[in-house]
């Protein structure tokens, strides 16, 4: 058998993915940095509330509006609460909002888009019209409208973010499914006795998922900003719950009088988180893009 190559056996599956990931992270220090930061954020979300020095909800008006010091690393806010503790504890909520929004939009948009791209016809038309309707609104205004209509809860922020991002995911998923609709392996799957829904679920979706994953990390940054923006205008999370957006909103009024730390630290946390997710998205795209593979 002349064509049975004597090539060394390459690793398959998880081992290859880990090796490939290590290569990408190693090759580009920025990706490595983003990855480290991401781990830090996750740790803060999980362990933060246990490890912070002060109770984020406990007010001590005697200590109100103290600048950063050894006792209060980020100072105190207008009710004497420790800003540092609040910022760290808020990580959990904001991170939860980000992840939940992204998972929801992936399920909604991904499935709808893949069905639209694969079946075409009326499915495609209906999904297209829904996406067009959503896109007709300025996205933030739409999010505002949804939250205002459904009520000021965290669930509704998540739903609003998912709806607002639906067209993007549906569009990407649709395009990917459309490309693969006539691929050789889809025809081969039909010859092998697979009904259409099986092909969609087991052949198309696994190929579309990695591309959507990259988009998901970028959407996480957007989701946090969205939640922060909604809270800023009073439509999101309600005080006294610590959340970066509200903290910036409340602290903004104190900027003029010189108490910058109120708004600065939650704002910086926002910036770092979004920055990290975006960089991570770049790194994930490198990992997923087949052209980068050996």
């Amino acid at each position: 058998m002349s064509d049975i190559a004597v090539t060394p056996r390459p690793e398959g599956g998880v081992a290859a993915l880990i090796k490939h990931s290590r290569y990408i992270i190693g090759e580009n220090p920025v990706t490595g940095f983003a990855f480290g930061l991401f781990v830090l954020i996750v740790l803060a979300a999980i362990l933060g509330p246990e490890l912070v020095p002060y109770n984020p909800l406990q007010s001590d008006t005697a200590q109100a509006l103290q600048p950063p010091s050894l006792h209060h690393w980020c100072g105190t806010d207008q009710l004497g609460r420790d800003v540092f503790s609040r910022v760290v504890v808020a990580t959990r909520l904001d991170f939860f909002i980000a992840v939940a929004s992204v998972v929801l939009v992936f399920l909604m948009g991904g499935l709808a888009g893949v069905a639209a791209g694969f079946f075409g016809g009326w499915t495609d038309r209906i999904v297209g019209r829904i996406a067009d309707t959503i896109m007709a609104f300025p996205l933030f205004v739409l999010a505002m409208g949804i939250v205002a209509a459904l009520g000021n809860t965290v669930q509704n922020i998540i739903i609003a973010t998912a709806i607002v991002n639906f067209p993007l995911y549906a569009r990407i998923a649709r395009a990917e499914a459309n490309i693969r609709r006539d691929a050789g392996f889809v025809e081969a799957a039909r010859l092998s006795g697979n009904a259409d829904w099986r092909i969609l679920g087991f052949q198309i979706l696994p190929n579309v998922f990695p591309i959507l994953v990259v988009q998901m990390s970028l959407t996480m940054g957007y989701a946090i900003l969205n939640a922060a923006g909604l809270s800023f205008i009073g439509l999101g999370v309600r005080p006294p719950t610590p959340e970066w957006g509200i903290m910036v909103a409340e602290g903004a009024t104190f900027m003029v009088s010189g108490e910058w730390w109120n708004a600065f630290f939650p704002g910086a946390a926002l910036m770092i988180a979004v920055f990290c997710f975006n960089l991570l998205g770049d790194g994930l795209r490198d990992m997923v893009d087949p052209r980068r593979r050996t």
Partner: protein
Amino acid sequence: MTTMLDVADVSKLFPVGGGPGAWARLKRRFTGGVETLPKVYAVDDVSFDIAKGETVGLVGESGCGKSTLVRALTRLVDVSSGSIKLGARELALKPSRVFARDRDRARIQMVFQDAGESVNPRFTGFDAIADPLRRLRKLRGKALKDRVETVARQCGLPLQLLTRFPHQLSGGQRARVGIARAIAVEPDLLVLDEPTAALDVSVQVVILQLLQRLKREFGMSYLFVSHDLSVVRLLCDRVLVMYLGKIVESGPATEVFEHPLHPYTQALVAAVPRLHDDAAARLRLIGEPRSPIDPDPNVCRFYGRCPRGTDTCKITMPALRSFGARQVACHFAEEFLPQSKSVS
């Protein structure tokens, strides 16, 4: 020889530009209009049969309709008209959308041109071969594993390669995976769509010899689609030549290549590079093929490019006529016959 596959008057037409939109179609349902839109005659009134154990070659250039014909035969698309009989069963009746679940699905299988394209990049070799066995033979667990390994061995695929993904395999190994998958369910008819086109010449030999061996061992019939006439000559008992949706010539492979009767076949054979010829044979086709859109049913499809074209060719479409084992669709076929044969 018993007939395995009987194709009669199969046509496949495509509306140009995808046809009327959904609203137009909806409206037509209520107003009852008639469709008078231009159509591409991708396959036009094709008839042939394949006997059990026979290898039939299908040659023709791009745009001749062989891909469409193949997809119609394997029931991936529906025919516009005509009949496809596998044994006694009429296959054209069942829509292709639901044919995947049909009890006869396993009887016709296909090997694709580019195994890299036709195996899901996220499937291992094992998954790819197991898929039809799971769906069509309902095998699971150990029975499935045994069958996959048996088939892999028959195709000369080392078992340790079954856990690899397509991009980790060489071209020849991928081709073997594609073949293993197709024969796993023991089809009666195997359609091979240019299976060695993407392979190096040395690998091609091995794969062709494998295909030959498998055919003899399992008594399958082959429909071998290729543009490479030298390969078709070696592997096929009979060959069909297609041009612009129609069969223009058919007959035993060696005879068709040594004495082509149809002018198109003659040009095709003259154009094939041979090891011990130079390019002096200057029988060349000029111009572009005629349009496949709503072709005039009275004009020979080859008229205009044919080195000889007379008024007869413009007025009457030449029918596929038989001369012994050979068939030709040309008014002047008699002139090229090796010796005078009576029309049968």
